[in-house]
């Protein structure tokens, strides 16, 4: 499974856009990029998944360059409730049900 590197923490103010970049230099051809969000004492929650280019849903956008060696999760206009740990995961069919989490990025949003 490809290893990922992401910042340990990021601070932001309410209403700003938060961009978290994840490096995955050894990503395999069949691997997808998935992001999860976790609040304290809760299980992680799926945010978004992509393979290439750009994916957008009601919560976030995921930007993936052509070489796929990195990806950026973009959270538009964050609020206090977006304070959480965000995990970047890379894997394909062989990782289904066997997610390999790193340490994640602690995002703190302040008024």
């Amino acid at each position, binding site marked *: 499974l490809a290893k990922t590197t992401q910042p340990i923490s990021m601070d932001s103010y309410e209403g700003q856009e938060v961009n978290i970049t994840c490096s995955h230099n050894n990503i395999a051809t069949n691997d*997808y990029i*998935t992001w999860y969000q976790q609040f304290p*004492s*809760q*299980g*992680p*929650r*799926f945010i978004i*998944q992509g393979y290439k280019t750009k994916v957008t849903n009601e919560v976030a956008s995921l930007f993936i360059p052509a070489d796929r060696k990195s990806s950026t999760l973009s959270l538009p206009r964050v609020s206090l409730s977006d304070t959480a*740990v965000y*995990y970047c995961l890379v*894997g394909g*069919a062989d*990782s*289904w*049900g*066997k*997610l*390999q*989490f*790193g*340490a*994640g990025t602690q995002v703190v949003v302040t008024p």
Partner: protein
Amino acid sequence: DAGVTQSPTHLIKTRGQHVTLRCSPISGHKSVSWYQQVLGQGPQFIFQYYEKEERGRGNFPDRFSARQFPNYSSELNVNALLLGDSALYLCASSTNSQGRYEQYFGPGTRLTVT
């Protein structure tokens, strides 16, 4: 629809004891995975069960075991508890939808070993 449920919510055990944690997946989900999350770290994969068969095992000692029942619920058993087993134990369920690897996590069971 109900999400993934886990029981108990909290548990306190003494070193050397045995513990059983339970998980009920989302209706229709045939895969259940177990994770251990130590404070300050990301979840670590323990087991995956699909259709009542073990499909994967993480780097955990044989003290950890699990099983899946015909209704797809699952149990995680840990024998000879150590202080280091204190953690949040997460259960996640998913459907066999290759190409989309979304897992739905339960709220977890907080295990404290004293």
